[in-house]
């Protein structure tokens, strides 16, 4: 009997071989974002005087907390696009995961190996829940480092001190840790959709994209017209409300103060999220259960479906 964890590792690794977009897509985003920043510097080179002034101000006028806040804003802004890319990637991955193998008949080969249908479906779920976020996160770290290196080089060329202006103040570990937690929590929060897309992928005979999205629109409409209720619509909509990971009161406190100049030096992105609050959220667990039901259905379909 082979270790089921070894099995899962082999299966998830296989997903990374097959779906190269899991690392190619974030890498492409990283290359583009670094290029955009480089272009930006070439552009500001035209404003020699202003740049010098900016750097002098950055070094002498701004306090540590402001520099930290500015760099945090820069890093966070830089990261947003990766979330968008990961979301699109996850949707397309899930819709393809159990569909392509049927389309190209390789399912017959996979099923000739001693691997259960449950193990296979779980490996696809783990790829969406863990592998995609972790790969994206590693790319984000690499992109941050490259970007900050370029900025440092620029600051040094312009006569500033990169260590003082950037490396001493940049809250990189805070930003990275907070992003890792957020990147791993988001797919769990949206797991009902991930489960649904995996089920569609295992079940549909054609056009998984259409079959995946159409019911999300049609079912709430039908429910409203026939039953005059909005249960499904509310369920879908509530997923896009504020996620329970964000610790709402702290965010409000910061914005209520309107006083960014006074942000404390110890201010941390990590303070804005609350893992216990997320783990205690009934809405999150309800979503996980829905995901589990869809995955069970996907396993059942893969096992009992007989395409001949």
């Amino acid at each position, binding site marked *: 009997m082979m270790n089921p964890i070894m*099995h899962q590792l082999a299966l998830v690794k296989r997903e990374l071989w097959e779906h190269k977009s899991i690392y190619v897509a974030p890498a492409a985003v990283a290359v583009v974002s670094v290029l955009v920043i480089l272009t930006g510097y070439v552009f500001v080179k035209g404003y020699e005087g202003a740049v010098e002034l900016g750097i002098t101000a950055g070094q002498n006028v701004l306090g540590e907390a402001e520099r930290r806040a500015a760099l945090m804003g820069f890093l966070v802004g830089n990261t947003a696009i990766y979330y968008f890319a990961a979301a699109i990637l996850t949707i397309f991955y899930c819709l393809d995961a159990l569909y392509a193998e049927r389309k190209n008949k390789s399912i017959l080969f996979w099923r*000739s190996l001693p691997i259960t249908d449950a193990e296979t479906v779980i490996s696809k779920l783990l790829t969406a829940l863990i592998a995609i976020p972790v790969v994206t996160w590693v790319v984000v770290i690499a992109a941050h480092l490259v970007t900050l290196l370029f900025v440092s080089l620029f600051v040094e060329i312009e006569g500033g001190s990169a260590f003082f202006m950037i490396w001493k103040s940049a809250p990189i570990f805070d930003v990275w840790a907070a992003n890792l937690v957020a990147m791993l929590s988001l797919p769990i929060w949206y797991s009902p959709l991930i489960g649904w897309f995996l089920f569609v992928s295992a079940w549909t005979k054609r056009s998984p994209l259409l079959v995946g999205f159409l019911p999300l629109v049609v079912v709430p409409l039908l429910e409203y017209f026939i039953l005059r209720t909005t249960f499904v619509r509310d369920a879908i909509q509530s997923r896009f409300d504020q996620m329970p990971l964000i610790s709402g009161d702290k965010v409000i406190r910061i914005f209520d103060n309107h006083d960014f100049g006074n942000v404390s030096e110890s201010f941390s992105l990590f303070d804005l999220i609350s893992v216990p609050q997320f783990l205690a959220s009934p809405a999150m667990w309800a979503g996980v259960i829905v995901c589990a039901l869809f995955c069970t259905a996907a396993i059942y379909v893969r096992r009992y479906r007989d395409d001949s």
Partner: protein
Amino acid sequence: MSSLVTAQGMSKRYGDVRAVDNVSFEIEKGKIMGLIGPNGAGKTTLLKAVLGLTDCEGQLSVLGLDPFRQRKQLMQNICFIADVAVLPRWIRVHQLLDFVAQTHPNFSRERAEEQLSRTKIKPNAKVKELSKGMVTQLHLSIIMAIDARLLILDEPTLGLDIIFRKEFYSHLLNDYFDGERTILITTHQVEEIENLLTDIMFINDGRILLDSSMEDIPSQFVEVMTSGENAEAARRLGPIYERDVFGKKVMVFENADREQLDALGETHTPSVADLFVAKVKGAAA
């Protein structure tokens, strides 16, 4: 337990169509069983049931397991080649070996690599870059490196040229088959496997028409080439099938008195292909 596969009253329905209709058979250890039938006869359905890929009615036991419910345990001791199309096209050869090594407890990577080193297949090649014949060689190299008790081949040489087909079977016989293992094979090209089979089973319309060892065929079936009055006399003995060859009559008899037939014309044992036609057409007549 010498019987690896036992089916009792096994049926599989797709809607109103009975793809496999109440069949019973056994496959014993160390046999090479040929499953022969026209398209749509139920061969693939039968194999799928044996492989646990589809549920069926009746009793079916493979290696003492219920194939549909205990598929994972079963797959540790069964190998399966459907046809050349099923290896994923995006995968690289070394990735494929890695994956099978990590998921199959009875797979020997060294053995697969040794097999592959005799071919032109490069470890870094992608399956989609390989020719059809090379994909089969690759699949066969993996299968041969798995210490399995039962090997199931469903039209394994479909679409391959004659040289590959010959190599495939000689490889199978010389390097794989050792009397301990058991092979169940379906193919349209009966003539090519006739000599390697130990047992044969004909299937048509979901029913088994013949289930016999190759050794028993000569004592069960005889083909007579005759003409004129002798043909009339032979026809009265109840051939299962009759055809014309160059103005002569060729009749196939089942369990007939061979000496009686010797007097009526030239007798010999029918080839599997001819016997198959006789059984299928004879059953339809």
